[in-house]
């Protein structure tokens, strides 16, 4: 269901003391979903109108009708996002606007009743819902991470040890991730609040040390929410993981005098002063030219980390909302207008992955011929009558389930020989003289070093997947201690963390991740391979798979613990059951080593 566009809200705050001191006038008006801004310098000009999903009037006091309070903003945006997270979607809330525009009030709010922002309300709500869970087979766990993006660098705000800048990456199965970013286990909102607090401190400390202004950095707080369901019949766990990302986008701050740090997202007729921004001008020029429907150019990223961040939240199967905070004052007119324009553009953001179809002119011609043929047949054989009968009665309409059957059959045909088209081709390809053209590009076998590196990465990932909840909590605790020590050294104080931790979770074991062809199965299923035998097949097995070519008992995983404490998993196929490991059909038992990169096992 991606393709649903971004939900956009704007919110206007009361005057702050500076604005009141300068006798500021309000240039914003709202009516329903529409926000209206007047140019204080050209009051005669028509006001500019923008419409959004929500326009929140929080300029006056709660008593006034039409005033949007914290609760309402959460109800409209936060709650919906939380529900999507329970459904298994990734969700993301972007906050945008000039510093002092009320961004943090909307997101965090104040620690007073009725004044909490979206984040605390959302977390409270999350733990309330999971706490009320009475189903013994359903297990929830929550982990958080907090990072900062500044000048193309990513910094872990929760782990002070990782002073290095982290790399953003994408994994084919696990999706986009930040390498080595710590994920800390939490058991309640107080934990989250403490971590956010600690992260914000780290952010401030770093900003001060490096003479940066935090307002120029983006901060991303992520809540990873896992719903684990145990199937009593099979004793297997399935997991539904969703990420809730709360992104604080750098404001459209005043760029410094050279314009070099022009991180502003501002549009308009402004001229960039410094030649260091030439790249931006040229990209914009090339972009103006490129055809949005069928992209035929490549414009190198100027802001690759931010692009990555947006890609993650706008490009996949995720739900996104954006809240722009507005200052009401005439003295901030320019910035407010640019915030509104930005928000207006955000409405249009949809996934830009467009299907480029081939022209089907030939197909159409063929079909027209066929139509002609059938028509002439119809008349030449005088079957008009027959046709009428057909239309009126007989030939029963296809059963309602036919669509699904069709899907099955279509898949079935292909599955029967999943290698079939290639097999058919291979014959003819093999006895032809090799075509030089085609051979230029043969994938080079990867070098040992590369293999080792990939292995290491994979192992890191698998280790992370296998980490038990206890281990995660232990790690969280130790990172917390480190963080506190380091922050204490910096002279930053930390509140005592009094939460008791101890949630039961199955022991970490090797496991399988399903790679379903069917995109409907948008969840990642995890099948754990326990010590001893794990049988795979259709009936009376530990891991139940269905499909035409899955035998009653298809194959068996044998997991043993060696003396060194390592786990060795052997895969034994049963006779007549086609089993592939990394594309090769296996006949005999095979020891599966993590050494072989992520294993691709096909049944």
């Amino acid at each position, binding site marked *: 269901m991606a393709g649903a566009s971004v939900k956009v809200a704007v919110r206007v705050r009361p005057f702050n003391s500076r604005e009141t001191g300068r006798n500021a006038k309000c240039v914003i008006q709202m009516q329903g979903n529409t926000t209206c801004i007047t140019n204080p310098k050209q009051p005669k000009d028509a006001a500019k109108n923008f419409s959004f999903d929500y326009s929140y009037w929080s300029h006056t006091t709660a008593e006034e009708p039409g005033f949007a309070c914290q609760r309402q903003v959460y109800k409209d945006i936060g709650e919906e996002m939380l529900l999507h997270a329970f459904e298994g979607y990734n969700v993301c809330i972007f906050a945008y606007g000039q510093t002092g525009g009320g961004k943090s009030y909307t997101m965090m709010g104040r620690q007073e009743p009725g004044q909490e922002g979206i984040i605390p309300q959302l977390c409270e709500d999350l733990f309330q819902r999971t706490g009320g869970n009475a189903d013994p087979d359903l297990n929830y766990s929550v982990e958080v991470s907090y990072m900062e993006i500044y000048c193309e660098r990513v910094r872990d705000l929760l782990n002070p040890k990782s002073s290095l800048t982290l790399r953003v990456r994408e994994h084919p199965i696990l999706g986009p991730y930040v390498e080595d970013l710590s994920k800390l286990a939490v058991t309640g909102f107080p934990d989250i609040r403490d971590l956010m607090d600690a992260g914000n401190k780290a952010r401030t400390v770093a900003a001060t040390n490096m003479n940066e202004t935090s307002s120029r950095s983006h901060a991303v707080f992520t809540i990873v929410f896992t719903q684990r369901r145990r199937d009593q019949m099979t004793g297997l766990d399935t997991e539904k993981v969703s990420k809730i990302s709360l992104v604080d986008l750098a404001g459209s701050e005043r760029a410094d005098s050279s314009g070099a740090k022009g991180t502003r997202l501002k549009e308009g007729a402004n001229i960039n002063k410094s*030649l260091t921004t030439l*790249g931006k001008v040229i990209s914009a020029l090339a972009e103006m*030219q490129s055809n949005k429907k069928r992209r035929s150019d490549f414009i190198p990223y100027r802001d690759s980390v931010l692009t990555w961040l947006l890609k993650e939240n706008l*490009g996949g199967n995720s739900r996104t909302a954006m809240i722009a905070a507005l200052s009401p004052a005439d003295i901030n007119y320019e910035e407010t207008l640019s915030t509104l324009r930005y928000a207006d553009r955000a409405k249009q953001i949809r996934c830009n992955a467009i299907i480029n*179809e081939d022209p089907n002119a030939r197909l159409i011609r063929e079909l027209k011929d066929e139509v002609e043929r059938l028509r002439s047949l119809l008349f030449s054989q005088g079957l008009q009558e027959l046709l009428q009968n057909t239309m009126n009665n007989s*030939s029963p309409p296809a059963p309602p389930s036919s669509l699904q059957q069709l899907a099955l059959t279509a898949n079935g045909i292909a599955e029967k020989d999943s290698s079939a088209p290639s097999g058919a081709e291979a014959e003819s390809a093999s006895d032809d003289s090799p075509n030089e*053209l085609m051979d230029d*590009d043969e994938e080079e076998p990867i070098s040992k070093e590369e293999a080792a590196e990939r292995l290491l990465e994979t192992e890191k990932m698998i280790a992370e997947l296998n980490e038990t909840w206890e281990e995660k909590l232990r790690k969280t605790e130790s990172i917390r201690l480190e963080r506190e020590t380091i922050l204490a050294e910096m002279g930053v104080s930390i509140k005592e963390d009094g939460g008791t931790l101890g949630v039961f979770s199955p022991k970490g074991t090797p496991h399988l991740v399903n790679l379903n062809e069917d995109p409907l199965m948008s969840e990642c299923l995890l099948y754990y391979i326990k010590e001893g035998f794990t049988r795979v097949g259709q009936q009376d097995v530990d891991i139940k798979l269905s499909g035409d070519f899955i035998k009653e008992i298809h194959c068996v995983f044998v997991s043993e613990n060696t003396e060194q404490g390592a786990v060795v998993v052997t895969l034994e196929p049963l006779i007549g059951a086609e089993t592939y490991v990394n594309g090769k059909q296996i006949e005999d038992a095979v020891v599966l080593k993590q050494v072989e990169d992520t294993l691709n096992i096909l049944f």
Partner: protein
Amino acid sequence: MASVSSDEWRAICDKFTNAQNLTVVESLNDPDNDPFRSKYKARELLREIYCSLKSFEAGEGEEESGGETGETGESGEQLPVEAPVDGQTEEAFSQGFCGDSPAGLRAAKLGAVEYYLGVNHVDTEELSAGQEHLMNSMKLLGRCRVSSENVSLFIHARNQLGILWAGRDETETAQGFLETAESIYQRYMKEDGSPPTDMADYFSTEENQLTHQERTKRFELAYTHTMYYLAQVYKNLGETERAAIYCHSTLQRQLKLNQFSPMEWALNAATLSQYYITKGRYMEGRHCLSAATVISGLAGEVPSEAAAQESETESERREQLRQKRAEIARCWIKYCLNILQDSKKLLEDSIGELDTDRQEEMKRGRRLEEEEEEKERKSAMLFGSEDTFDSIASLEEKVRCLLPMDFTEARAIFLVGQHYVTQAKEYFQMDGYVTDHIEILQDHSSLFRSLAFYEEDLDRRCKMHKRRVDMMEPVCMELNSKYYLMIRRQMMFELAETYNEMMDLKLTLANRQDETESLDSHTIKKFNNLCSASAKYFQMFLDSLCSPEGKQPEHLEEEVLRPALVARFRVARLYSRLICTSPPGQVENLDKSLEHYKYVVDYCDSHPEAVATVETELELSREMVGLLPLKINRIKAKIPANN
């Protein structure tokens, strides 16, 4: 005027140095709550300098009309904002004091202080006051003729006014100032050309005067900025063609004057190439790309992996160099792809096959084009310095910039594209850069698709499509649709189309070889496999549009509306083409076919807004919904007869 060596003068020079230091260095450390602290201090110093200069003048009995200008700061906000018109270049060269006369020098010095005050006010967001100071500077200079003593100030002041007016959305006014600066520069270089005095020289003691080299450098840099600002002004006016020319000259000047950082420059040139190729201007595109590749080489060797592990700076450098070079490679891929696709568009007939008549005609017109190319190449704006000209030219020779007309020419371009695919994939690996890697794969596949168009041997053509399947199928299957749904949809659609194409080719081939006999069982099997594979991927695409519970969407989103209906239409067609000898099997396939045609018709009936996007397909689907039942019944009628 105090002599250049007097103590008073020395004090002025010190103040000026101080003010510059406050503006450029100190201001970076100003706290957030007092962001302009240093600039305000600098402003005070500049005002003092202004007063001292005036008092020297007064001593020498000069009257000065712009005398109050030093005080305009506070009243500036109330000034009416009206767009002034810049004076004519012609007048600037023919009228007024000589630049090197005492009066001329005095005007230049006062003008320079006004200029700095203007910039200072603009920087501190007092635009109107800034404008007034800059205009005063212009007024003072307006009384002088352009000469090496003041030409730099002429340009700088106009650059600043250009920025100022552009910021007020008065782009035409900005354009006026900048274009005047441009013509002043050109005329000066034509008529004089000696290294001009820099404004900083007005206020430096004898021993600190800039060298001629440094003067030239600063002057040329100011003009490079003029070019750059004009590029932006034209862009904002929607004159993209002119904007591109000015970006191009900015790049050209950076290179010529050796004022660039290699990687940044290379990436900018590569990006500009993308503008040119989407415009179909391949010669310029190729020139930008060749220059990008050569200049990126100046950034040095990529540090080895071992070195990268030793230090973080090396590791970052390695990352940067590899990434940027891979990005330039991706720009090259697009060049090759676009040129192949453009020529395909010209050469194909109504059903997408090579139109040989057209091909002949184009080839004949080619000689003219080649001559044209030679001519254009001479007049084009070339990049390069003495030591890079040749390497850029030799890189250009490796790939043509004329549209390919036959297989051999297309293949040469294809191979270059494929070379860059390999290069780009070295950095953008699947593991870590999923979306980038796949975009490159998709381009590679498109390169094959374009090349296949020129291939006359159908068997070889089929194999090219097979290569596309081979590169995409495993990747499409591996990806997690939770994160890469969109990209998977694209791949499913392309795979479906590719299998379809292969199926058509197989059939044509079989029919050619064996026109008399019917198809043998081997061919039928192959054909059916390809047909089912195509249907399978269309179906996968359609399934990907369903809700998590597997329900068909009632309303198709705009961006998938046409693809979804076209996929239905094509699946319908595919089912009717499956070769099946048993009549019940035939009936089953045709039933499915009918089902899909019906979907298209029903969807459009209940969503009239969809009709426009699939007009032809809808028309044919309606026909088939009417006609297919007839065919099905005819076959059904045969079944009992056979029994």
